[in-house]
């Protein structure tokens, strides 16, 4: 055991049992998985991505590139979890990744011996030929050998949540600068949200030994947190990762891995601290080689001695502070090598554990732990999310964000204020001051960067997680990838899940050296969200499976469900597709029965999903005249008219019937899918195009339940339901409408027909819809009424040649659909000018026709292309395509609608439907698209 007898911010009265790769261990409350593993002398925790090299724990924070493990089992497994930030809990099961058969004996470590092959660009250069083998052979092999943890491939059983936060000041990071900033702003009465990734606020003060106002810095942390907790205008979110900064002061965060926060802040202070740089020398990845700040953290915060013989290799004063802190705890370092004195560590020696180090004077010292203090990189990533570029500061040897985006202020180590006193002072200043800066113990932060140890033989890693070495960076430079962005992509440096938090700046520096540039000239990359990995599940939240989008039910839904409806999704709506009866073999038999029942008797269909818009005001008819190609100002009160709307570019946008209920009041209907778009279009027309018109428009789609009652017996059915209402041709002619009262509620009846039969549409306020549908079927029972769904509706509209979604596809004109004569010449309307363009009135454009197979036994399929008989099946000979097909029970064979070049002139001609991927070629005859009752006698009843 490496646990020290005393000390650390752990609760030794609360032991926690956990397992790693099946073996059982014990840690304490307050441990992370990493500190508990080290306390149990586990140093080998992972295999590297490409070479399968043994890897240990490098850091004590979220920048960890090596110690990624899988937590849990089966569907609950969470791969690639950083052991360094995972709080230990009782029963935790962790397992190592990317090894086979075991972590200790990984057969793919042969990749390390073959490593001369695996340099940067290896895949691009080696697996070039034959190209066909990429998908089948090379890529699967490479993917198996290289990698991270595996997904369970089962649905994620975790529950995710979402919340919103609004504040005057968002403080990111609860280290000394962040705590001071939050306190200063909190005391000033600002609404403060303090977000910190750790389970416990304090930042580096938990890991280093300092004094504030003459007492332990931990006392100051506790007092500050206590005061913040007492302020009602301050909220602290611990274990919360702020993963991205977005436009307009919006930030994304994830609390506890489970709750997505969308935070809107007037201002934000990024007190995100700094990340210590590893040093680049041979063997710098052997388990036991760690950052100095991590060694300090494990000893101070978790009471764990990471080794028995510890050496420190430093380029900065912070390394000397680590030596002092260790000595104070009773772990005297074996040696301290300060590169500023001219001494270097040239090589670390060991396999699965560090055994010794070699120094530049040739000495070899036996150690089991090497603490690397390579200087600090301010964590400026979030500040770069919106495009601000960091600048190199020679003074501190690191990148700083000199001009963060508006509303954002950098503070503390993130702003280059590395010393404790300076960090606290910068936090207070960023928050607007108003609070004295406490006295702090000395905390020197001198540093001189050392980018590369020369004459170091062996693999020296820059990006640990992607196994990128100093030689890979040099190779990239030699091969011409001399910008940091190109070097990044060629070597994959910084592209692993840690996004180069420990390696990017070292990589930039090595590239600068190789290309003879300064750090300033070499530049660096911009960080994009997410700053840390975020699971897709937390972004999806509750919006998955059946909750992916809202579901809309019509008021007749329950009735349809009781009557055996099969539903289809139409946008968000559930619509009854058909109502199968016992004994029916398939949907085609059901739909054919519904069509025949309607055409010979009476059928009822729920058409409530159609878009409905109330247009009201003195200028209502003027507005409609400008929206539709045809005229509505002449429509008498109590009458309905079919209308066609174009886009301004001249193509058809939507169609539907509009009814005039008063001089200044119209009831517009749209297709189901376009309801929202047409509402938007009408609002644009009345608010932006013609604001001078006195007219209002309101969506009433969900206010009315509407049922179509169709068929020769429809009037008989309604006469039973509405015995007092005169439904004769004189009182309610075809395309007539009226309002009346049904059982005390306002109702509307329309003489409209989509089926081509005598038909009515009956509408009541939506919450009476269920009552009405039940009453309609009660009244119709003796007449043999049948419910019909969207499929039968579709069959009947094809039989009548009415265009619908497949024909109103955004590429057809009114003339294409056979409605060119509706285009009014007496007024302006949206799309008028552009619809008259020569190419849009060319008769060679594909135009609506009907087709039926010459052999009545053959089936038609939509999507087939049209060819003249004998023409070769090439694109140049394409004459259009089949848009809609159905089996017509009325005619006893398949029929279709198609868009055919010069269509109207070709009725009677025989052509070919070319469908090479399904049924091959079918000979069809071109006919009038109105297959049933072309004279329109039946609708007038």
């Amino acid at each position, binding site marked *: 055991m490496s646990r020290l007898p005393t000390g650390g911010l752990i609760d030794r009265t609360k032991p926690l049992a956990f397992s790693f790769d099946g073996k059982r261990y014990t840690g304490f409350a307050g441990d992370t998985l990493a500190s508990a593993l080290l306390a149990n002398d586990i140093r080998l925790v992972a295999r590297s991505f490409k070479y399968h090299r043994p890897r240990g724990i490098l850091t004590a924070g979220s920048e960890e590139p090596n110690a990624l493990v899988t937590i849990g089992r089966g569907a609950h497994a969470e791969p690639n979890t950083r052991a360094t930030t995972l709080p230990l809990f009782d029963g935790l099961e962790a397992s190592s990744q990317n090894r086979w058969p075991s972590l200790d004996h990984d057969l793919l470590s042969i990749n390390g011996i073959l490593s001369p092959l695996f340099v940067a660009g290896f895949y691009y250069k080696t697996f070039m030929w034959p190209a066909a083998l990429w998908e089948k052979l090379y890529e699967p092999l490479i993917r198996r050998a290289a990698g991270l943890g595996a997904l369970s491939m089962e649905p994620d059983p975790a529950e995710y949540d979402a919340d919103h936060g609004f504040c005057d000041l968002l403080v990111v990071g609860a280290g000394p600068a962040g705590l001071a900033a939050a306190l200063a702003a909190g005391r000033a009465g600002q609404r403060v949200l303090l977000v910190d990734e750790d389970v416990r606020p304090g930042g580096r003060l938990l890991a280093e030994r300092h004094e504030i106002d003459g007492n332990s810095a931990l006392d100051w942390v506790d007092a500050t947190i206590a005061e913040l907790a007492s302020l009602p205008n301050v909220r602290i979110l611990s274990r919360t990762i702020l993963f991205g900064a977005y436009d307009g002061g919006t930030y994304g965060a994830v609390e506890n891995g489970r709750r997505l926060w969308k935070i*809107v802040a007037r201002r934000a202070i990024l007190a995100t601290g700094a990340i210590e740089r590893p040093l680049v020398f041979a063997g710098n990845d052997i388990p036991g080689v760690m950052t100095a700040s991590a060694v300090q953290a494990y000893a101070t915060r978790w009471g764990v001695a990471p080794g028995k013989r510890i050496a420190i290799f430093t380029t900065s004063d912070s390394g000397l502070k680590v030596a002092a802190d260790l000595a104070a705890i009773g772990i005297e370092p074996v040696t301290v090598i300060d590169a500023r004195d001219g001494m270097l560590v040239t090589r670390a020696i060991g396999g699965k554990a560090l055994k010794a180090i070699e120094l530049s004077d040739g000495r070899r010292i036996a150690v089991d732990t090497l603490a690397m203090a390579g200087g600090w990189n301010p964590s400026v990533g979030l500040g770069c999310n919106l495009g601000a570029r960091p600048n190199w500061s020679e003074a501190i040897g690191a990148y700083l964000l000199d001009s963060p985006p508006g509303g954002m202020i950098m503070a503390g180590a993130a702003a280059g204020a590395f010393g404790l006193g300076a960090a606290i002072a910068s936090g207070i200043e960023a928050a607007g001051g108003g609070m004295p800066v406490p006295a702090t113990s000395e905390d020197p932060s001198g540093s001189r960067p050392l980018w590369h140890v020369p004459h170091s033989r062996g693999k020296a890693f820059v990006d640990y997680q992607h196994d990128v070495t100093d030689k890979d960076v040099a190779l990239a430079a030699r091969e011409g990838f001399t910008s940091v962005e190109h070097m990044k992509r060629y070597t994959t440096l910084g592209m692993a899940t840690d996004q180069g938090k420990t390696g990017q700046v070292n990589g930039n520096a090595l590239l600068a050296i190789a290309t003879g540039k300064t750090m300033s000239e070499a530049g660096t990359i911009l960080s994009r969200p997410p700053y840390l990995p975020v699971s897709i599940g937390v972004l999806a939240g509750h919006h998955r499976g059946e909750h992916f989008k809202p579901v809309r039910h019509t008021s007749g839904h329950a009735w349809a469900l009781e009557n055996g409806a099969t539903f289809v999704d139409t946008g968000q709506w559930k619509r009854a597709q058909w109502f199968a009866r016992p004994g029916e073999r398939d949907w085609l038999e059901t739909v054919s029965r519904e069509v025949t029942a309607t055409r010979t008797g009476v059928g009822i269909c729920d058409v409530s999903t159609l878009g409905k818009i109330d247009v009201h005001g003195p200028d209502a008819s003027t507005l409609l005249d400008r929206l539709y190609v045809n005229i509505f100002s002449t429509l008498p009160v109590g009458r309905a008219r079919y209308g066609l709307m174009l886009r301004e570019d001249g193509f058809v946008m939507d169609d539907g019937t509009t009814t005039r209920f008063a001089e200044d009041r119209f009831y517009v209907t749209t297709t189901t899918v376009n309801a929202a778009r047409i509402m938007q279009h009408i609002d*644009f027309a009345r608010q932006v195009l013609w604001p001078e018109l006195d007219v209002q428009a309101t969506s009433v789609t969900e206010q009315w339940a509407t049922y179509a009652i169709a068929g020769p017996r429809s009037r008989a059915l309604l006469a039973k339901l509405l015995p007092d209402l005169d439904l004769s041709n004189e009182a309610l002619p075809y395309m007539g409408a009226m309002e009346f009262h049904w059982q005390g509620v306002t109702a509307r009846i329309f003489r409209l027909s989509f089926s081509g039969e005598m038909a009515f549409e009956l509408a009541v306020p939506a919450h009476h819809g269920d009552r009405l549908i039940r009453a309609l079927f009660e009244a119709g029972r003796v007449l043999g009424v049948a419910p019909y769904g969207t499929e039968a509706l579709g069959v009947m509209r094809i039989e009548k040649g009415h265009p619908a979604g497949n024909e109103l596809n955004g590429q057809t004109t009114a003339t294409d659909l056979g409605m060119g004569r509706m285009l009014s010449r007496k007024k302006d309307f949206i799309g008028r000018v552009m619809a008259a363009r020569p190419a849009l009135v060319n008769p060679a454009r594909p135009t609506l026709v009907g087709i039926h197979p010459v052999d009545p036994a053959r089936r038609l399929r939509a999507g087939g292309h049209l060819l003249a008989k004998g023409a070769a099946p090439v694109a140049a000979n394409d004459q259009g395509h089949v848009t809609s097909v159905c089996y017509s029970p009325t005619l006893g064979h398949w029929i279709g609608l198609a868009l055919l070049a010069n269509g109207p002139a070709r009725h009677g001609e025989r052509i070919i439907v070319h469908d090479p991927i399904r049924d091959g070629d079918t000979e069809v005859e071109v006919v009038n698209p109105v297959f049933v009752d072309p004279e329109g006698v039946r609708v007038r009843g």
Partner: protein
Amino acid sequence: MRIPCPFCGNRDTQEFVYRGDASPTRPDTDEAMHDYVYLRDNVAGPMREHWYHAQGCRNWIVVTRDTRTHEIISAEFPR
């Protein structure tokens, strides 16, 4: 991104539908219609745009946005 709707106040962009450049106005002459429908400037800088507050007040508003920074300079009713 957030848009200061003149009717509803500062709201998240998810509530809005974007249409595009607000500069072209519907012409009175047939000859000018082609340019109105098809020609748009690719602005780098402040641009007047039409946004529809579909999940709010249902007003069309004219938002002046810097296309380089996404800074919202103003938001007003079109008339």
